[in-house]
Structures are given as structure tokens and as C-alpha cells.
């Protein structure tokens, strides 16, 4: 290998040094480095470094407090010019920036209305969605509030969909995925940034976390949220799975309180994707209705050209059944509410 090639293969000094700030026990050094950057006027770099640090060393109260200080002081310093910008040449980006600053200063109603104004002004501009998502992401990180995490995900997905190469959107989405212990998904999201900027702090945080976090075995983000909340994954042991006797036109599955498929009818799909869908379905529905103020989930019915799908709650578990013929909906409902003859087999 020639001198030039070997030199090019070596990481640059700054990259080497930055990576050292993400090794275990480097919290204080990272904090000092952020302070240095901030003191010499590199406020954005200081903030990005601290944001990545709070993900790498999560939960890290000292880092969170420092990040909070930096973000607030940046917001305070820029507030007047942001307000001027909104007054003089109103644009979605200006409204979104003002929203972000207000959010940092604790004016959440002002922040929300400016973010919605940004979305209304230009629904295809990702900035408004990103401004809302950042506030939720912060709450998710600091308060372990899963609802805030879910909100952040919705707005970040929308922002990334509108501008797939938007660096800040990708960084924020990767942060969320890393907090959900999903390094594989985060690495995919960060690929465009990793290519052009391998020393980006969030890329370095990802590299450090990849060494600690086992790769996730699901691509379903709803499943990641459920695992984060419950602290466990469904087991889905095929060897102990039992059979539910059911009329030939019905496919039936039983999912237990751990969201694992424990029984199904003959011929019902037991593939990995179907099993994961049923786990997510059970977890999501049990979670959704109380949080919307509707109380405990009891039943769902889905109708469409593909037939009818009914799910019935049973003390923490769920019985799900599908029939291709919509005309059989009443019979399927009646059969599900009967004892289904399961006990004779199990």
C-alpha cells in the first residue's frame, strides 16, 4: 500500500479524538469538550455533541442538564431575530425555527401553534414536523414517556418521508431508534450521514453503542416500542403451541399475555411475519384504548375486501380470527364468543 493510500485510510485526528469521547466512562471529557466548543462560539457543534452524548450515555442527567442549558441559551439569543424573520418574510422554515426556540424556552403552546403554522404554510416542508418531533423526543428521553416517543416517531417519519436526505431529521430518528435499542435500524437511517461525515457525533455514538447493544431481531418499530415499554419480547415457542379446533372457513390464533402465539387452528398461518403481526396487534390494542380515554380494550372488528378479522380480549390474552367471507361475520362472532371447543383439545 502506498504512503498516500495508507494515510487516507487512517482516521483523521479529530475523528480519533471525538471517538474517544464515546468510550465507557468518557462522560466528563465529552462534557468538557462541548464546553470548549461552546466557549469558542461553535454552539451548533457543542449541541450536536451533547445530543449524541445523551444517547450514548443514556440515562445521563448531567449531560441532559448541560444540553438543556446550551439549547436554552441558543434559543434565548436567537429569539429576537427569529421573531423578526417571521414578521418580515414569513416562511415555513422561519415559523418552524421560532417554534423550536419557543419550545426550548418552555412556551409549549406558542411552540405548538408556530409549528402548526409552519405545516399549514407548507405541508411539504419537513421543518415544522421536525420542530414538533424534537420536543416530543426530548420528553421521551428525559421523562421515559413512551407516548411522547410515539408522537416523535410519527412526526419524524413524516419529516423523513418529505425529505429523505435531511440530516437533522435522520439524526433525530436515529436517536429515537438508539433509545429503543435498535442499532441495526439506526445504522440504516444514518447511512447517508455516515458516508459523508463519519466523524459526526451521532455516528460515533452509534458506533459505540453497537458494541454494547445486541442487534435487534425485528424491523417492526411498533414491536420495538412494545419491547421498550414491557422490557420483554414474545417467546413464540412452536414446540408448546396447541391446536384450536375451528370450522374450516375460520383461521384462529390465541396470543397470551406475553404477546406470544400459544395456540392456533389447523392451517392458520404460523409464519414469523404473521406471528410478529399478532404480537404487535395484541400489544398495540391493549395499549391504545386506555390511552385514548376509552378504557380497557374488549374487541375489534375489521372489514374489507379481504374478509373479516375479529379479535376478542380474554383476561390479558387475545383470540384473533379471520374469515375470507364477510357474509360469515355474524357466525364468526358467535363462534368466537362461544367456548370455541378449545378446552376439549387443550
Amino acid at each position, binding site marked *: 500500500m502506498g504512503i498516500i493510500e495508507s494515510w487516507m485510510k487512517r482516521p483523521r485526528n479529530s475523528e480519533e479524538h471525538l471517538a474517544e469521547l464515546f468510550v465507557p466512562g468518557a462522560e466528563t471529557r465529552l462534557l468538557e469538550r462541548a464546553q470548549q466548543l461552546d466557549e469558542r462560539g461553535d454552539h451548533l457543534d457543542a449541541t450536536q455533541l451533547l445530543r449524541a452524548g445523551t444517547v450514548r450515555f443514556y440515562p445521563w442527567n448531567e449531560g441532559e442538564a448541560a444540553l438543556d442549558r446550551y439549547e436554552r441559551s441558543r434559543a434565548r439569543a436567537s429569539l429576537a431575530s427569529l421573531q423578526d424573520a417571521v414578521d418580515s418574510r414569513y416562511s415555513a422554515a422561519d415559523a418552524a425555527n421560532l417554534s423550536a426556540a419557543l419550545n426550548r424556552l418552555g412556551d409549549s403552546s406558542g411552540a405548538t401553534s408556530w409549528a402548526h403554522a409552519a405545516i399549514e404554510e407548507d405541508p411539504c416542508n419537513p421543518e415544522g414536523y421536525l420542530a414538533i418531533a424534537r420536543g416530543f423526543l426530548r420528553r421521551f428521553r428525559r421523562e421515559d414517556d413512551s407516548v411522547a416517543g410515539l408522537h416523535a416517531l410519527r412526526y419524524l417519519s413524516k419529516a423523513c418521508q418529505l425529505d429523505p436526505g435531511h440530516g437533522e431529521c435522520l439524526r433525530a430518528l436515529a436517536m429515537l431508534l438508539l433509545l429503543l435499542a435498535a442499532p441495526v435500524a439506526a445504522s440504516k437511517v444514518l447511512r447517508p450521514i455516515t458516508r459523508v461525515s463519519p466523524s459526526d457525533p451521532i455516528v460515533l455514538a452509534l458506533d459505540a453503542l453497537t458494541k454494547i447493544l445486541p442487534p435487534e431481531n425485528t424491523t417492526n418499530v411498533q414491536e420495538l416500542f412494545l419491547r421498550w415499554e414491557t422490557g420483554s419480547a414474545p417467546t413464540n415457542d412452536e414446540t408448546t403451541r396447541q391446536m384450536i379446533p375451528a370450522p374450516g372457513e375460520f383461521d384462529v390464533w390465541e396470543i397470551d399475555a406475553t404477546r406470544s402465539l400459544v395456540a392456533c387452528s389447523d392451517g392458520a398461518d404460523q409464519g414469523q411475519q404473521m406471528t410478529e403481526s399478532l404480537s404487535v396487534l395484541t400489544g398495540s390494542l391493549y395499549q391504545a384504548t386506555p390511552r385514548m380515554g376509552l378504557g380497557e380494550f374488549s374487541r*375489534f372488528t375489521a372489514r374489507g375486501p*379481504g374478509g373479516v378479522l375479529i379479535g376478542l380480549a380474554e383476561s390479558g390474552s387475545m383470540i384473533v380470527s379471520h374469515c375470507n367471507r364477510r357474509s360469515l361475520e355474524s357466525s364468526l362472532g358467535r363462534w368466537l364468543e362461544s367456548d370455541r371447543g378449545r378446552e376439549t383439545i387443550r
Partner: protein
Amino acid sequence: MNRLLEKLNEIPGVLGSMVMTDDGIPVASRLSEGIDEECVAAFSSTARLAVNRTAMHCSGEEPEEVILEAEGGNLLLVNLDGATLAVMTHAGLELNTGLLEIRSLARRLSGILEIRIS
């Protein structure tokens, strides 16, 4: 759109309604006081996505409507081609009677969304 949502809310038993994008971003809402719009949008979208995915595995087709029943009320989710209509109702409401009216208003909402997109 808001007028149609208000009309929907006049159906006996309906507590509130909203239109949201398929990814759960609220577009217009007429929900009762005390109901968090963001929360309804987020969890409706999560529930709908989970039901849709399972239905797709069963039949390869997405459902047109999903009804969630719970102790304290029901939630109807109707597909509007690229958006979703969410309607909250009282618990134990006889869904078949109000459903026809809700479906008809959903078709009109779908028409409005089509005009906006084109």
C-alpha cells in the same frame, strides 16, 4: 371538512371525530373537551397499522373500516384513501344504525380529500 365533522358529531352517541393522515398526523378534528387530539391520532394510527398488517397477512387486502370496542367507548376508523376518519362513540352503542350514516359522511370526506389532492 370541519362542517362534515360537526355533522358527524350530531349523530346520537358520537363523542367526537377527526381526520388524520395515514401516518397519524391530525388534519382536522372536532373532539370533545378533554380528549387529547395528538393522543387519539397517535394511538388510532398505531392500532390501525397493527390491524392492517395482520389483515394483509391474512388476505392480502387492507380493511376499509376497523371498529375498536372498549369498556368506556368505541372508536371507528374508516379508510379515506390516504387518510383516516376516526370517530369516537359511547360504549355499548348499537354500531350498525349509526354506521351507515358515518359511512356516508366518510364518502363525502373522501371526496373533499380527493379534490384537495388533485
